[in-house]
Structure formats: structure tokens, C-alpha cells
């Protein structure tokens, strides 16, 4: 690559850097400043946090919950990932869909589903009482157990997908060799299989642990009042006492814990703890796992990989494989069950949740389509997500291109900056964003919400576009210009068609992120502007009505429709 090319590409770093600095770094810095009582500097608010035992307990509880969630996800997820990597053909794509669709389904929808299931009058309780196993409903909703069940369910795909991605890349011949050499299945597993899957486990565990630290919606909706997590405490302090300084201090403490969790893995895993490298190590297996489901993205190679798997050898045989399969099916059932129940509930004719509903109707869909507030919320969400997607594709796309073609020296720092919003708990981002956007008069405004949601979308775009662009041969670009095509012509005729499948995937993820985000939105969108997830969130808090089941059902259909469309569209573009 000649240097004028690289210098020109360096300019393309600018939009991304400016945007992220203004809407990600600056809010965090401002929040840090507020927490110390800027323009004075003192640690009063930190001292206050650590002087109140119940707040320190909350910190420990947050760590404990994240640990439990991580361990449970590993126990459920690892065998499932192994089972998935053994499956073949169409069965495999269906099983994978059971993992990916919940991942793409709105967090709120999944949380709502658990509220339905764990209820005292829920199907689960009615079933158990019917069997005579219990004579009193299990008090699962609004209990610690309930919150943990919901959190594990929500985090499970983030554990399974990275492990699956690594297992998928392993050569089964090694296991065969280990066994042929007399290692025995157990020894072969612990000496050969498990060590090779470690990168996937590390990636999954870090993701789950760090994301759990920032858990907000699910524990608030499912948990007992006394098991607040740090992020719930931040909101409680802000909403009730309007103590911005104290809330900022707790947010900084949460941020520090999260970074420490990532740092720990960096220390164990590599010699260099460069931020960008670390993030990519954690997130790329996840993206790789996701891309397995999108056979037509990634330049069509994945599709070939799928067919090559047909003749793949089973690592486990006999009873072991049957137990593994049974376990895998159970876990996948656990993953999809909530969605199924929500769909069924949405056709209920009752205001009160009963399962199975005693009467059926489309009344909740009727409410949904005739109530102007739902339509308005839907429109707001679609508008916000669409604009945010366009913005993040422009900014993130250029940044990804610059990361591939631009100066290597700038790369790690900028990469880290572009991906950082992904690893910071959204409640932390929200507090910072609020402190910046409110004085600018952008709170309660659609523009403000779009600006607030775009950094997160950019991260998705950068990580997916980067994966796409690195598999793209730069010589094609050079060939085009040497044959006399200008920059624009080259971009349109050569670059765009090749990267189109990846770009569509990136846009889809950016859109889903902006459409589904609820924590940042609840801070920035204000009172009268309601996005669809916000309206659902208030609805979940105030009315457990089946109308939310109906809107949830429709929101689940979105990723189901989007995925095949993505595949077909990509094929059309390729030919």
C-alpha cells in the first residue's frame, strides 16, 4: 500500500473521532468532573458511598450476581455450544436460530416474557400446582431467584455464540488423534478439546460478566426490592434525590468495576493490554458466532463452510452424545420458551394473565393498531433508528475503512475509541450523556436521542464492517484504479458490491441497537417523547396487560423477517 493512499485514509478517521469524542468521551469526562464536585476537586461523594454500608453491599451484590450469572451461563452454555458444533445441515441452522433469535429479540420483550412466566398465577405455577408438587405458588417474580433466571436467559446467547465460534474452527482430527493415541475420551477432552476452546470461554465469560455488572432493566423488573444492582441505585439516586453528583460518583464506580473486569482478562490472556485489541478479542468471537447464522454475509465463504461441515466428524459418540443432545435441547428450549409463551398470551381475550388464556381474540392487536399512542411510539422509534443507522453507517463505515487502510500507528487507539461504547454499561453512558445534552437543550428532543444512541450503533458498524473489509483484497481496488477508474467509480463498482452483505448486516445491527435501546432513551427521551421500547417499559412497570404481549410478538417477528431477507438480498447483490 503506498503512503499517499494511507495518508488520505487517515483523514477518514476524523468524523468518527470527533463524534465519539463529543458524545462518548466528553460525557464520561464531564460525569467524572461532576462526581468530584467540579470546579472543586474532592472525593466527598466517593467517601459517602463507601461510608454507607448498604451501598457497599449493593456493590458486592452486583459482583455476586454477575458471578452467578456468568457461572450459570457457562454451565448451561458450554455443552450447548459443543452440541451445536456437532449438529449438521438444516437441523444445525434451526438450532442456531434458537440461540440467535433470542439474542436479536428486544431485551424488554424477553424480560416481559419472564414476568409472565414467573408470575404467581403463571403457567409454570399452575402446572406445578396441578402436578401437586407445590400447593402454594412459588414466589419467583420479584425475588432474587427470579431476577437471576431472567438475567441468565438474557445473557446465555452471549456465552454460547463465542464458544461455538471457536469450537467451529477447531479441527476434529485432533480429538480423533488424541483418542487414537490412547488418551481416552475424558483425557482427550481435558487435554485437547477444552484448552483449545479457552479463547471462546474467555470471550463469553468476560462479555457476560461485564455486561451483567451493568444490568438494569431485568433486575428492576424481576428482582426483589432489596436486590438492587449498582445501576438501579444510580437511577434511584437520580430520580428521587436528583443528586447528580452522587449518581455520577456511583456511575464512575460501576465503570471502574467494569473496566477492571475487562482488564483482568487482558492480564491473563495477553501480554499487551491494548484496549482495542482486548475489545476485539472479546467481541469478534461473538460477531463470528452471529455471522455463522448469516450464511450469505462474509463474502459467501460461510455458506461454503456450512456445506463442508456436512461430512464433519462427531467428537462424541454413543451415550455421551445422546446425553449431550438431551442437555442441548433442554437449554435451547429454555431459550425459546419465553418467546413462545408471549406469542400465545398475545392472543388472549383477558386483561388478566392466565395461561392458557381462557378466551382467545385479537383484541390486544386491535388496541395496538387503533391506539394512536402506540402508532406514534412506533413511528418515533422507526425514525430515530433509521436516522441513527444512516449516521452510524456513514461515520462507522468511514472509520472502519480508515482502520483498514489508514496509518497503523493510529489504529489501536482509534479502534478502542470506536468500540468503547459497547463495553461501558449503558446506565453510565446515560448519566454522562444527560449531563452534556441537557445544557445543550437536547434532552426531550428527537435530535438529542438520535445523537445519544448513535455511538453504540457505530460500535456495531465498525466491528462488522471491519470484519468485512479485512477479508476484502485491496489489490482489486488498485487494479480498478490502474485500469483508469476514478475513486468514485471504484467505490461504486468494486468496493460497494463486495462489501454490501457485510454492510447490510452492520446496518441491521445498528438499527436493532437504536430501535431497542431503552436505558439511554429513558434518560434522554424525556417525558412526552416515547419510543416503542420506552412505552413498553412504562407498560411493564405499570400494566402487565396482554397489549404488551402483542407488541412483543410483533417485535419478535422483526428479526425473524430480517434474517432471511438479509440472506436473499446479499445473494442478489453478489450476482
Amino acid at each position: 500500500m503506498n503512503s499517499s493512499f494511507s495518508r488520505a485514509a487517515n483523514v477518514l478517521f476524523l468524523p468518527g473521532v470527533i463524534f465519539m469524542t463529543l458524545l462518548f468521551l466528553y460525557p464520561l469526562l464531564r460525569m467524572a468532573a461532576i462526581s468530584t464536585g467540579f470546579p472543586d476537586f474532592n472525593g466527598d461523594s466517593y467517601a459517602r458511598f463507601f461510608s454507607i454500608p448498604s451501598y457497599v453491599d449493593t456493590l458486592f451484590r452486583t459482583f455476586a450476581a454477575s458471578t452467578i450469572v456468568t457461572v450459570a451461563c457457562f454451565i448451561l452454555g458450554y455443552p450447548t455450544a459443543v452440541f451445536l458444533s456437532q449438529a449438521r445441515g438444516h437441523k444445525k441452522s434451526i438450532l442456531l436460530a434458537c440461540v440467535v433469535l433470542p439474542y436479536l429479540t428486544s431485551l424488554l420483550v424477553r424480560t416481559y416474557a419472564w414476568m409472565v412466566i414467573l408470575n404467581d398465577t403463571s403457567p409454570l405455577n399452575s402446572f406445578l400446582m396441578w402436578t401437586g408438587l407445590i400447593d402454594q405458588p412459588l414466589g419467583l417474580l420479584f425475588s432474587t431467584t427470579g431476577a437471576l433466571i431472567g438475567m441468565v436467559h438474557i445473557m446465555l446467547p452471549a456465552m454460547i455464540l463465542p464458544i461455538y465460534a471457536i469450537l467451529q474452527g477447531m479441527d476434529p482430527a485432533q480429538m480423533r488423534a488424541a483418542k487414537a493415541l490412547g488418551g481416552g475420551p475424558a483425557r482427550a477432552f481435558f487435554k485437547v478439546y477444552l484448552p483449545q476452546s479457552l479463547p471462546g470461554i474467555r470471550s463469553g465469560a468476560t462479555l457476560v460478566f461485564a455486561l451483567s455488572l451493568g444490568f438494569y432493566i431485568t433486575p428492576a423488573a424481576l428482582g426483589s426490592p432489596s436486590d438492587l444492582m449498582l445501576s438501579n441505585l444510580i437511577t434511584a439516586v437520580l430520580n428521587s434525590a436528583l443528586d447528580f453528583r452522587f449518581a455520577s460518583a456511583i456511575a464512575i464506580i460501576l465503570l471502574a468495576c467494569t473496566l477492571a473486569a475487562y482488564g483482568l482478562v487482558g492480564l491473563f490472556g495477553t501480554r499487551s493490554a491494548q484496549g482495542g485489541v482486548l475489545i476485539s478479542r472479546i467481541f469478534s468471537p461473538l460477531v463470528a458466532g452471529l455471522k455463522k447464522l448469516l450464511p450469505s454475509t462474509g463474502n459467501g465463504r460461510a455458506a461454503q463452510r456450512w456445506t463442508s461441515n456436512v461430512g464433519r466428524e462427531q467428537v462424541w459418540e454413543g451415550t455421551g452424545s445422546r446425553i449431550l443432545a438431551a442437555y442441548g435441547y433442554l437449554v435451547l428450549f429454555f431459550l425459546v420458551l419465553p418467546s413462545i409463551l408471549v406469542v400465545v398470551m398475545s392472543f388472549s381475550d383477558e386483561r388478566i394473565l392466565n395461561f392458557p388464556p381462557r378466551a382467545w381474540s385479537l383484541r390486544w392487536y386491535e388496541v395496538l393498531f387503533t391506539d394512536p399512542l402506540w402508532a406514534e411510539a412506533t413511528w418515533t422509534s422507526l425514525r430515530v433508528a433509521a436516522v441513527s443507522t444512516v449516521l452510524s453507517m456513514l461515520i462507522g463505515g468511514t472509520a472502519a475503512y480508515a482502520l483498514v487502510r489508514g496509518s497503523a500507528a493510529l489504529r489501536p487507539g482509534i479502534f478502542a475509541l470506536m468500540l468503547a461504547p459497547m463495553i461501558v454499561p449503558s446506565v453510565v453512558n446515560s448519566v454522562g450523556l444527560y449531563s452534556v445534552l441537557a445544557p445543550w437543550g437536547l434532552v426531550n428532543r428527537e435530535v438529542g436521542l438520535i445523537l445519544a444512541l448513535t455511538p453504540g450503533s457505530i460500535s456495531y458498524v465498525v466491528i462488522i464492517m471491519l470484519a468485512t473489509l479485512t477479508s476484502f483484497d485491496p489489490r482489486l481496488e488498485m487494479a480498478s484504479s490502474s485500469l483508469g477508474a476514478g475513486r468514485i467509480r471504484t467505490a461504486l463498482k468494486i468496493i460497494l458490491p463486495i462489501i454490501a452483505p457485510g454492510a447490510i448486516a452492520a446496518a441491521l445491527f445498528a438499527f436493532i441497537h437504536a430501535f431497542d435501546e431503552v436505558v439511554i432513551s429513558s434518560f434522554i427521551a424525556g417525558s412526552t417523547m416515547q419510543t416503542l421500547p420506552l412505552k413498553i417499559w412504562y407498560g411493564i412497570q405499570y400494566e402487565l396487560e396482554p397489549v404488551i404481549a402483542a407488541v412483543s410478538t410483533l417485535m419478535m417477528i422483526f428479526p425473524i423477517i430480517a434474517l432471511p431477507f438479509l440472506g436473499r438480498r446479499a445473494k442478489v447483490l453478489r450476482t
Partner: protein
Amino acid sequence: MKSKISGVALTPLLLASFLTLPANAQDLIIMISGGTFADAQIEAFVKPFEEETGLTVRAIKSEVPANKLKLAVESNTIDFDLSLKTEADGIMLNKLGYLEPIDYSVFDKAELEGIPEGLRPSWGVGNITASFLLSSSTELEKRPTNWAEFWDVDAFPGKRTLQAFIGVQGPLEEALLADGVAMEDLYPLDVDRAFAKLEEMKPHIRKWWTSGNDALQLFNTGVADMGMNFDGRVYALQAEGRPFDLTFNQAKYYAVHWTVPKGAPHKDTAMKFIEYATRAKQQARMAEISGFAPANTAAMAFLPEEKARRLVTYPENFKTAYKLNGEWYAEVDEEGRSNAEKLQERWNVWLTQ
């Protein structure tokens, strides 16, 4: 198996709802809280007001907490015209200068006389009088009739719920009543004593509810058999055929006021709406649907006897009820912190202990 509308009918409905959406064509934007209470207000106030005036009202089923309202006024991003506030919140916001004064000149003299003076301060006009009271399932073998009995978990078995402390409301009075304090001696609240009594109840509360709908759902879904509830929400439960009833014994009542935030985009229309919504006839309609007592006493004349009997302001009920002292909650110490703020902080810490 019955189906109200067919799937075929849904498609045009969907299209229609998306195509006919008027973008920001509202003449008035109001926050009306949530759930059945909000539904009742749409029926009693919003729809007839739109019909009479030809104006479009955007009624949002949500609430704006006092703190969010403060921030919105400070950052000059107020985007609604009316919201409902309790007396204590109203006093506090008014002290800060965050509320528009009510334009009483647009009110009809006779109508205004029906609203007790205490319900028409400079900063807001009463909408309804709600009460927190003891509600319990009629299916229980033994139902508590006062807060002391409610606290007696052995003699009165059942699943319990109380309100969480939210800004200016919480279960402190109930705890003190359970501890033997008389209704007339409640204020100023003995906060330490209240928390000590709440400590006894804490292990028996699975969920402290935070909104009227929250409470309704807890009873609705069987999480609670007895506890604090709003009168209107109990009637909403009854309307759904749920086996719950209430007692006005030791009921705590307070008024909800219409308030106009500083910088409201349609201030004048907001005044007109308040005037309309507090007319005796509209108030009677509201009381009939919601079960909450009207702020306009003249509304009682438009109510059938059996409906009036259900209201906290009905003489017989009123005798055993007491008024929530909003002024005490809004009282500010020398550091500028109100009792409500201090209580909220103490509650947050207590809850996570």
C-alpha cells in the same frame, strides 16, 4: 374460541393507523398518569373537551416526576402543558418558581365555589381526591380492618404489599397507625418510630408498589392478598371481577392537582382545559368511572347515591379518614432540604439494607 376481528381486517387497520398519523398537530399536551385512572380521564375530560372545542389533545399515559420536571424547566425543554401533582410536590415546585400561576379569570364563578379553597391554590387546581387505604381479598378467612391488624401477620395470614416511598408518599403513616399513634397525632411524623415499625413488616413484603397500576397488578396477579391500595384501583379490580374490597377506616386522602409547568408551550389552552375538567358535571363523570372522589363538591349532586357512597368524601367514609399533610412533606430545613427529600434518601438506604 372467539375472534373479535379477523386477521384480514387488521391489515387495513395497520395501514390506516400509520398513514393517518398527524405529526405534532396537537393543541394541548397533557400527562395523565397511567392505567385505568388515565382511561377514565380520557373518557371524562379529554374526549368531551375535544368535541366541545374542536381542539386536539395529546394525552400521554405517563407521569413526570417532580425532579424530571425541574430538570426540564431548567434546561428549557418543557414539552407538555399539564401534569398532575400532589399537594407536597406542588408546594415545592411552586416555591422554586417552576409552575405557572393558574388563571382563575377563565373560571365560572359558580363552578369555582364548588372547589374548596384548599384545592385551588395559586399554583394548581384539584382534579380528584384519592385515598390510600387498606384493601384485602374477600376470599381471605380473616380480613384486617385497620393497620394494626394488617401488621399482625400471625393473626391475619396472607400475602402483603405496601407502597414504596416515592417522593412525598409512602407507608410511614400506616406504620405509625399500626404502632398505636392516633390519626390526629400523626404529624409531624415520628420518622424513627415509623421506620422501626416498617422493619417488622419488611420480611413480609415481596414487592413495594410504586404506582397505582403497579398496585393493581400486584392484587390482580395474586402477588398480594392485602395491603395499601388506591380506592379507585380497588373499584377497577372489582370491575374486572376480582374479589377485593376496601375499608375507609384509617384511609389517607390527598388531592391531585392540575399544574402547568413554567414555559408550557400551550399555556392558555391548558388553563381552558383545567377549567373544563373541574366543572361539576365533568367531575361527576370522572368520579363515576374511576371511583376517585371529585375535587368539585358540586359534582356530588350529579352522582347517584350508590356511586357517591363509594367515594372517600362521602360523609360516612370521610369521618374515619385523615388528610395527608403535604405541607409537612414540603417543609424545608435550614440546609434547604425538604422532609420528602430526606425521607427518600433514608428510604433508599433502608431498602437496600
